[in-house]
């Protein structure tokens, strides 16, 4: 059943986004083509306009990804469509996990499309050398390779995204336990949860750095390698734990039952 739910959720979320992906990539391709042409004033202007449109497309893809994820979640679970969702012979856990997994997949696709569009516009051997040089310069003091840095960054962003999606879903479910002012309560709970996880991660980082003798490095003008490593590990573990907590809590709230309008 989870597989079937995933299929429908994924289709639902990407139905509109797929056109946005196509438009953004096509705009990026056109920008590239125009930029390869003659450097006359008119072509340069068109190139800049297209570049602006591509950036707008990228922002549009990212914003709409989150709007679609949250919109689909709310309409499936708490609006008219919930009359079908909650009467399907599938467990609440499956319903919830299907939304979480499909949301993450959609986010990954959107990010890949955005990166691809940027590469279409800017890719050249010189650009890649420059980018690599910039990353190497940034991580030089941490005794880390550029590839390692990118891998850590991508992993951290992925874990953080998981936690934020789970957090947003929990806030929406929590808000819908109230009989009125659900949007307001949703925003309040999102703020509370986000503040809580940020504070927990910071406090834990400080404690772990203190226990491992890296506290001074954490507050130094340039963070020390040991402190950075401690912080990355603590934040990663923190986000994973927070994701598990939010999944558990939202599942528990769901199992208690919903109160659909």
């Amino acid at each position, binding site marked *: 059943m989870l597989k079937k739910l995933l299929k429908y959720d994924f289709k639902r979320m990407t139905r509109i986004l797929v056109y946005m992906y196509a438009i953004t990539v096509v705009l990026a391709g056109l920008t590239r083509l125009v930029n390869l042409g003659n450097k006359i004033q008119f072509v340069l202007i068109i190139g800049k306009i297209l570049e602006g449109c591509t950036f707008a497309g990228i922002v549009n893809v990212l914003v709409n990804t989150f709007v679609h994820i949250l919109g689909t979640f709310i309409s499936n679970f708490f609006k008219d469509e919930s009359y079908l969702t909650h009467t399907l012979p599938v467990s609440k856990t499956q319903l919830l996990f299907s939304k979480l997994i499909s949301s993450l997949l959609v986010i990954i696709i959107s990010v890949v499309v955005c990166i691809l569009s940027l590469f279409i516009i800017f890719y050249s051997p010189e650009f890649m050398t420059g980018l690599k040089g910039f990353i190497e310069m940034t991580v030089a003091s941490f005794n880390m390779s550029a590839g390692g840095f990118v891998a850590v960054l991508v992993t951290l962003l992925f874990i953080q995204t998981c936690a934020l999606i789970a957090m947003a879903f929990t806030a929406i479910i929590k808000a819908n336990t109230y009989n009125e002012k659900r949007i307001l309560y949703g925003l309040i709970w999102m703020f509370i949860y986000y503040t809580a996880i940020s504070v927990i991660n910071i406090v834990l980082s400080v404690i772990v750095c203190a226990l491992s003798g890296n506290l001074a490095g954490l507050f130094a003008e340039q963070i020390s390698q040991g402190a950075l490593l401690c912080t990355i590990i603590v934040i990663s573990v923190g986000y994973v734990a927070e994701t598990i907590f939010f999944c558990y809590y939202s599942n528990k709230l769901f199992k208690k*039952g919903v109160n659909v309008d």
Partner: protein
Amino acid sequence: MTDLLSVKNVSKSFGDKKVVDDVSFSVPKGKIVGLLGKNGSGKTTILKMINDLLTVDQGEILICGQKVSTKTKALVSFLPERTYLNPTLTVKQTFDFFEDFYSDFDREKAQDLLNDLGLDLNARLAKMSKGMKEKIQLVLVMSRRASLYVLDEPLGGVDPSTRDYIMQTILKNFGEESSILITTHLISDVEKIIDQVVFIDNGKIILNRDAEELREEQNASIDEIFRRTV
């Protein structure tokens, strides 16, 4: 007689307002039970609790002897008042959806019912009128070989010819092994088909009788008795 649905001492409040107050009734196998009441009497709230769309404050709801769960949802075919289908889908896609999730969905039957409506399988729901979407929902719900059909105001807000179509569809597709719980305030339209009547007013059951017995005893139609009682 086996009860397909048992509602036992169920209560539900929204804030300080008690909308369902200690309600008990049952739906036996093979019967059509009419839950009849005025607007706002608590009919829909009861159906929502039966379908896990609202939590029960007090009491118990049993479907085929089991508490409301994933298992019981496979036995119940629910037609809500609202249009619950994803508007971006076509009729064919909604059939696929029902076929994927309900093992008792009879696609052939759905296709036959759709042909009666003269609708195209590839028609998109977003381009249909509210009435047409409600008919598609009825087709989907009645095309399941469910044990219990729960129909919330299926005749509300539709023209007389559509009412006839809905009544025919319900009767044509209802088997002896299944039961129907139907709510409505348009009693004269359903009175010919119901076996048992449950009158509800202000969240309380005020009458629960066999329809035929009641008619004979009072020498009046259910509609007339309802007007006198509620």
